[in-house]
């Protein structure tokens, strides 16, 4: 169903002003979060930076934005905005024909998800510190902002978003499951279109900042929903559609970098469920005390689980079955597609447990964002109180079992495309889901 058919919706999306207003608001909030981390209280649960980034933003991102709007967050994300403006030398005008800065093309060997796999893993290894220490959160946020700006000067388009952003990678992976997509309406119109302004830019807007050719879009992974092509297409050939969940997964990706992203996310959810939601104090101290011997052990286990154990077991499980003899890299990547909905629901279930428990901090931090004793809205003294705790276990159970069903259905469609039976894939999904249920409930 085409959402952009309504002229009012379309006008709203085509106009640059609504998006600009959101960008400015988001950027202000982002810069404030960075400042709050530096000048506010070092107590994480009372600092705007921690509370708004890791409780409020994270909850909205993983529970609402990604499952329902795919890369919708990227459409309003403030991180690349300053870089965009500098790169174009303008706030509203499109990118100039001749680049203002270096405008290099990203080298071919980096044009994949591996850098994002690495950047996410790095953040993940230090997450216990980042998640709890305002200054460290601010350093990470500021680093992202400046890296995005720097890469905009050196490379063309949005190199940071496309190849480096630690969150951008998994948002893109999971965006394939969202019930929304930006696609062309008619292939033939694109075939005859002279100059392809959606990719090359025109007076109406920049060429795709995410370096994809909208005419060739078949999945959501790399389209940042920036809406430029909606503005530049002279033939009104771009549509935003509502569609069934996980439509992109019917034609699975055969790329190993994306497959590994799925394993990394799955493994990280399992490890966090154990370390953060479990009762082992030793694990928490090891994760928190970075660069101590215990942390190195933790890091080694972390890396082994996400890069060797989970993918290795998967490889083993699918290749020992009768039809799995000749499983190559391509087949392995295709066969790991069901881990995308499964991993998303793991993160939903994991996030439910700490978001609802710590939601009261949001109201308190709103009144006293820096932890300096202000009371702007009279909610600063609000006592910590877990919300809806009776509802968390059933909701997690539903999310995990639902995710398993979703993964199993996906496996039935994708395993044949990898030339294997879906049985080992479903068994693997069942096993990791039982493990996650055991860790969380």
């Amino acid at each position, binding site marked *: 169903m085409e959402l952009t058919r309504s002229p009012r919706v379309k006008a709203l999306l085509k106009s640059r002003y609504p998006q600009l207003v959101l960008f400015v608001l988001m950027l202000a909030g982002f810069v404030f979060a960075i400042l709050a981390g530096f000048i506010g209280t070092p107590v*994480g649960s009372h600092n705007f930076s921690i509370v708004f980034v890791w409780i409020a933003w994270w909850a909205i991102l993983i529970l609402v934005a990604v499952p329902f709007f795919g890369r919708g967050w990227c459409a309003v994300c403030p991180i690349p905005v300053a870089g965009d403006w500098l790169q174009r030398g303008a706030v509203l005008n499109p990118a100039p024909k001749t680049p203002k800065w270096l405008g290099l093309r990203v080298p071919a060997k980096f044009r994949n998800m591996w850098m994002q796999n690495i950047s996410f893993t790095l953040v993940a290894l230090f997450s216990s510190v980042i998640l709890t220490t305002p200054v460290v959160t601010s350093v990470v946020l500021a680093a992202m902002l400046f890296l995005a700006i720097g890469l905009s000067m050196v490379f063309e388009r949005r190199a940071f978003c496309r190849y480096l952003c630690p969150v951008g990678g998994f948002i893109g992976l999971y965006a394939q499951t969202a019930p929304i997509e930006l696609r062309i309406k008619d292939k033939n119109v694109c075939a005859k279109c002279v100059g392809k302004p959606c990719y090359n830019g025109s007076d109406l807007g920049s060429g795709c900042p995410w370096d994809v050719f909208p005419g060739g879009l078949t999945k959501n992974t790399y389209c940042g929903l920036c809406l430029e092509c909606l503005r530049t297409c002279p033939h009104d050939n771009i549509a935003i559609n509502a569609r069934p969940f996980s439509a992109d997964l019917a034609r699975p990706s055969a790329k190993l970098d994306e497959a590994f992203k799925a394993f990394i996310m799955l493994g990280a959810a399992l490890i966090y469920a154990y370390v953060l939601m479990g009762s082992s104090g030793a694990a928490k101290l090891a994760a928190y005390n970075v660069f101590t011997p215990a942390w190195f052990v933790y890091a080694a286990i972390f890396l082994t689980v996400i890069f060797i154990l989970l993918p290795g077991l998967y490889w083993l499980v699918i290749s020992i079955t009768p039809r799995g003899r000749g499983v190559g890299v391509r087949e392995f990547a295709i066969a790991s597609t069901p881990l995308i909905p499964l991993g998303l629901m793991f993160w939903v279930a994991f996030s439910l447990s700490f978001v609802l428990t710590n939601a009261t901090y949001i109201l308190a931090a709103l009144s006293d964002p820096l932890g300096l004793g202000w009371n702007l809205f009279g909610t600063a003294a609000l006592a910590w109180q877990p919300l809806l705790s009776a509802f968390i276990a059933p909701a997690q159970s539903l999310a995990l079992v639902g995710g398993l069903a979703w993964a199993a259905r996906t496996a039935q469609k994708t395993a044949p495309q990898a030339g294997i039976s879906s049985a080992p894939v479903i068994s693997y999904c069942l096993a990791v889901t039982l493990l996650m249920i055991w860790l969380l409930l």
Partner: protein
Amino acid sequence: MRFNFLLFLLGLAGLVMMFAPLPVQSSPPVEREFRIEASQYAYSPGEISVNPGDTVKIHLVSTDVVHGLYVDEYGVSITADPGQTATLTFVADKPGSFRLRCNVTCGAMHPFMIGKLYVGPNLWFYRSAGLAALVILSIVFWKRSNQPTITAN
């Protein structure tokens, strides 16, 4: 038709799995006492088990800074100053697994200072695991019944 009936049975089994009341606990309620040591960022022992109906008495001892202990869903809590013992008494009348959480900001990892209380068997775990197995069964059956001729590839 046969398969529809099978699916119906599986659905029924799922409902039973989710909502069936647990067999009544046979052991008479007793008073259970625990001494729990709290330190950054864990309880020791980290997990305690009682039977439904038991009266739970927790002596919380802090070995470093001030810590609290809040029992999810029961909503009861205590705070222990370093070196002092605080005692919390409540009747464990809700079955299942519940997290114990520190409710006094005690350091960076405070939001993740967690323990567990099991009252009887871990209901949601067994229900969810059973449901997961059922869901897989139904999906496999559903596929078989809908595309009996498919020979993938």
